[in-house]
Structure formats: C-alpha cells, structure tokens
C-alpha cells in the first residue's frame, strides 16, 4: 500500500521511504559524500550537519539531511 513521504504530502516512490524528490535528494546526498569526505576529511554526521547549514543546499536536500540526523541513521 502506498504511503505518504514523511517530509511532504507526496506519495512514496516504490521501494523508497521518500517521495521521488526527497528520494533523489537522498541519492544525491550519498553521491556527494565521497567528495566531501575527500575534501574535508569529514564523517557522515558532520557532513549532514554541514550540508544542511549551507545556503546553497536545496530545500529537499536539507530536509532529508535533517531527517537522517534525527533518525540517527548512518547511511554512508
């Protein structure tokens, strides 16, 4: 049964806990982590905090970063 994205009103994408936009944002976050890690020698949680504080970050990216932090997930 389809469920609602925890971060907005849209339905979840199949097989994902998020809608298509937040799901894409999560993928982009994972993809960019290796670049941040190499550039700043930074861990996953510090990375999520840093990304969500940047004004260049997209709204969906910040929302996913906050959500992952809240859940204490370590997706890296």
């Amino acid at each position, binding site marked *: 049964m389809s469920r609602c994205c925890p971060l907005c009103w849209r339905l979840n994408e199949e097989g994902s806990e998020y809608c298509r936009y937040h799901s894409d*944002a999560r993928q982009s*976050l994972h993809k*960019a982590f290796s670049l941040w890690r*190499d550039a*700043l020698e930074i861990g996953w949680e510090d990375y999520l905090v840093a*990304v969500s504080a940047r004004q260049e*970050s*997209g709204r969906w*990216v910040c929302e996913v970063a906050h959500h992952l932090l809240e859940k204490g997930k370590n997706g890296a």
Partner: protein
Amino acid sequence: MKERTLVVCEKPTAARRIAHALDDRGAPETYDEGGVPIFIAKRAEDELVVVSALGHLFSIAQDGGKWTYPVYDYSWVPAHEADKRQARTKRFIQAIERASEGTTRYVSACDLDMEGSLIAYMVLLNVCGEDSLDEAKRMRYSTLTERDLVKAWNEMAPNLDYPQIEAGRTRHEVDWLFGINLTRALSLSLKNASGTFKTLSIGRVQGPTLNFVKEREVEIQGHVPIPFWVIKAETTIEGGRIPLDYAKARIDKKSEARDIVSACRGKEGVISTVSTRRVEQSPPTPFNLGDLQREAYSKFRYNPRTTLNAAERLYLGAYISYPRTSSQRIPPSIDVRGILEGLRRRKGYARLVTSLLKESKLTPVQGAKDDPAHPAIHPTGAVPGKLTGVDARIYDLVCRRFMASLGGPAVRDNVSAKVIVDGEDEVHAFFLKGAKLVEEGWIKFYQPYVKEKDFEIPRLSEGQRVPIAKLRYLERYTKPPARFNPGSLLRLMEEEGLGTKATRTDIVDTLFKRGYVKDSATEITDLGFTIVENLERYAPDILSVEMTRSLEGDMGRIQSGEFSREDAIEKTVEVLESTLSGFKAHEASIGSEISGAVTREEERSSYLGRCPRCGDGHLRIIVNKKTGKRFAGCSNYFKGTCTTSYPLPQRGRINPTGRACGECGAPIIRVTSKGRRPWELCIDINCPSKRGGSNDE
C-alpha cells in the same frame, strides 16, 4: 467621381496619425461617434474615412452548451458578447458600421503582423460584409511617421494578406481549443473535489513554459553543494597592486590548497612569459523585441510587459519603429543618415551623431535573426518632447543601441603573464591578467549601458621578479543554477520555439497572474508545481515542447500554403481527445491534489512568523469579515492565551519575508503596490526602529 474609402486601423492613436499623414492639408476633420473618434481625410479627389479598432473586436466563443469540457464547437462573435470585460468594443463596432456607410473601397492599415491582418479582416468581414473583402487593399509600414505612411499608401498591396490571416485565425482557434478545454478540466477538477472555484489556466505554450520553471526548481531544491578552494594572491608592480590567480582554478581538497599556500608564502615570483592578444569586439546588433526586453531587464529591472508597453507607446508616438519584431537587421531601404539628422536635434545625442555623420559610409551591423514584415527596432528620427520614466529610458536604450550598431569595433589588448613561484617540492604557476581599451569604437555610443571591464597593468618583462603578497586560500561551494528571471525565461521560450514575439510576454504574465510563479526570480509556487506534476502524470503532451513546436510548424506551413486551417484544427482535436479522456478518468485525484496545493499556498502566503509576545503562537494575516480590513493576529487567540494583534497596511499586496525585526522581534513584511517600489517594514507600529524619524540628532 469622388470615392469614399474606409481605412481600418488597429488603435485610435494610430488612426489619428494615419489620418493626419494622409490628409492633403495634414488636418483631417474629426467627429465623435458614440465616444469613438472618426477621421475624415481628403486625399486628391477622394475621401478617406479613417476608423479605429481597439485591438481585436471579434473573438471566439463556444456555441451554446454548458461550462464543461470537452468543447469543440465555436464561432467568431463580437468580443463584447464573448467577454463582458470587452464591453467597450461594442461602441467601436457600431461606430465603424455607421462610418462605413457609402464606402466603396477598403484598406487594412492595422499593424503589419498576423494579429493586425486578422483584426482588419474580421472587421471588414463582419461589419462591412463579405463583398468588402474583394475591394480591400493592405498598407504595409513599420513606423507611424508621415513619410512612411504616405509611402505605404502609394505602394499599397492590391489584396489583403490572406496567408497571414489564415495562419492568425488558426492560431487563435487552436489556442482557444487548448485553453478552454484544459482550463475547464483543471478548474472543474478543483471545484468538484473541494467546492472551491479558481481559474486554473493552462495552454499549449503555458504548459511547456511552466514545466521549464518546475524543472529548474527541481534542480535547485535537489542541489548538494560541493566544496572546493581557490587560491588568490596579489603582487605590487610600480606601486600598483595587481591580483594573481593560481593556475589551477579549482582545488578539490582543503589539504592541497593549504600546502600550496604554505609552499608559496614569503616567496618571490618570476615572470616566465608575457603575451598580448589584440581582440576586436564587434558592435551589438540593433534590437529585436526579445533583445530589448532582456536588455531593459538587465539594465533597469523592467519586466517584459513594462518594456513592451513603453515600446508600443513610443511606436504610437512615431518615435520608434514597430516593436513586435524578430529582426536584428536594418535593411538598406531605411534612411539611416536621415534618422541620425533627426536624432542630432536631441540634446545628449548631438555630439555622438555628429561624429557618426562624419563617416562616409554608415552600415549598421546586421544580426542573424530576420523578420519578413519588419526591420529591427530603431528610432524614426522624430524627436519626442519631454519623455519621462520608463518611456525615456527605453527610448534612450533604443537610440543608443541603434547608434552603437553603426559604430566601429572596440579594440582591446589583453595581457596575460605567467608568474612562477619555486615552492619546496614543486613549481607553482600564477597568472596576472590585464586589459587595455585601444579603440573605443561602438562603446562610446552605448554608454552608460556597457560595463567597464578594463584593468590596465604596467609594462611587464620576462624574467622580472615580483613579490607575492596576500596569499590565501578561500573556501567555495558549487551553487545551484539560478532561477529564471522574466528575461531569461523569454530567451528560453524563443530558443525552444515556444509562442511568438507577440504572445510570449502574455504567457509569462499569465504564469504570475494565476499564482503559478512568484517574485521577480520566477519561483514556482506549490500550486504551479502540483499542476505540472498532474499534467506529467495524466496529460504529458501538454508539457511537451515537441507538440507545441509541431503546431508552430503547421502555422508556418499555413502561411506558405502547404497546410490548411482545417487540418490544424483536426490535429488539435485529436490531441485534446486523448488528453482529456485521461484527465477525466483521474479528475478526483487531480482535484484533491490541487486543492491541497491551493490550501498550502494560502496558508503560506498568510503566515507571517512566530508571535514575539507569547513565543509559541503563529502570526497570520486575518481579514475581518465585517469590515473587510486586514490585520495580523496570533494563533493562540483562539486558545485564550494570547491577544497579540498588529494593524497592517490596507493597500497593496503583502508578502511575508520570513524574517523578524532585529529591534522588536515582530515579523517583517514586504508591501507591493501598483506604481510604487516594494517596501519592507516591521509590522509593530511601536517598534523602536520607527522612532526618531530624523537622522540629524
């Protein structure tokens, strides 16, 4: 024998100019017919009855039936019958009907484009009767100067331009079919789901345009910034400070940037190579409409509609040529020297024009884009009296651009020197760059609209040692793409072949009017986003650039006689039938999603921020149902725990800024009123920031 000729013009101002130009004495008789001016001009033995339309006097309306969809039956009817807001057009139709009594010949003197041709055709067909079309001729002009109008009269085309008329008529019918059906489908889905009525329009050009804005927003909201570092330094040569850029523009690791800086710190550099490249910059092409709108946005932040309106006023005043043109070319038939002689009389241009007129040959630079009906926008040489505000700025931009297009190339010497610094483990390279304007060329005609980019540096020689100072590494992050502004959105539409020069401005205006986008940065709203998402799912053709481009191609083929109006309408109905059936099947879920977006949008636009008094309530804009006045109130009022309220300005649109006042903590709002610059204020009238008033103390 004296003949009476009916001359149909597009607007009253144009009719006045045309009548004055064609009357032998330059003073036509004028009378008022139910509030509509009619001009009687005498030309040789003939009498010309010059009448005016008011844009389109006839438009399309549904043949009977209810406010539902699909709708495929329609007719052309007087505009006031199709739309009550067009009530004024009734008087124009009646006035033309009376004025045309006894006329035996007919002339279309409307603007020379698809719309103008269609306006005159519909007037003649529906007011003067089908037979009048056999006797109708067409004036072709690009400026409303007396010289051009008399020439256009003497060299009139013997028939109306039927291919243009047919293409224009098809465009109106196709757009009407798309617009009426899709707008009703969207609006009814909302009404049936929530009981709320709101006009939710969409069309074959509006759809793909809104989709561009949505796709850009997806990129922005999904952007993850990536860190990188840049290394900057300075050197001092002959007492002047000159910036140095590290050879590698972007360094991906902080540790690497730090190592480079420590390796170069305190060192001297040696200039290893110096190169000078002479570059010629050609003059800009004269404006077409899109170029003018983009330049006016870039220089003055005027939206495309403001620029177009000003350009049309200047055209009707006979100060510039017809603005709705795609052309960036000035044909040889235009008397450039004569125009310049006229401009010389205007204070501020005299010196520039005199220097241009010294040239033996004056050939404007020609752009790639052309328009069969009109040249690029150019001044006519008629000198306006006192122009103010937007009109003055747009006129200046057009005149200076025209003069610049006649200037020579600007010539620059670009100097680049490589500076080598011997680090501990490796050699590092920096670049020092400068530019010197050698010949001003066209730039002097286009001031103050050219930014000075030159940075002159002293003479350098290979082997010269230079100090390296202010060495530092700076952290940077990749940015998301910028949102469209009205100018860049118009450019994209033009590049993608969406709409025409005459319709693009209206399409962008409609996106704002419907609440699909907001702010000058063209940010898509929740409502706009939801509309696109639903169309993506159930009617993807409407967002497709290819579908619209194919229909535009059909219009072009109608003009060249290779395609018929009937075929284009049939194709449109086919697309609509499949689209609307998919839509109807999912009407309930579409309506419920749109309803959610409308509610969220309303909540967002009324939310001002946290209440500074109680701390946990939310301040919202509330409208008093009895008085209709608006104020800001705390959400805790209904719980009985907070009675905070603030009066709000009663005029203008209020937009929350999301920021709180630094002095009192109350929300800051932005108020936008027609004809005024938007201003921001703290909503607390007792805020300390508002005390004092004078800065003299």
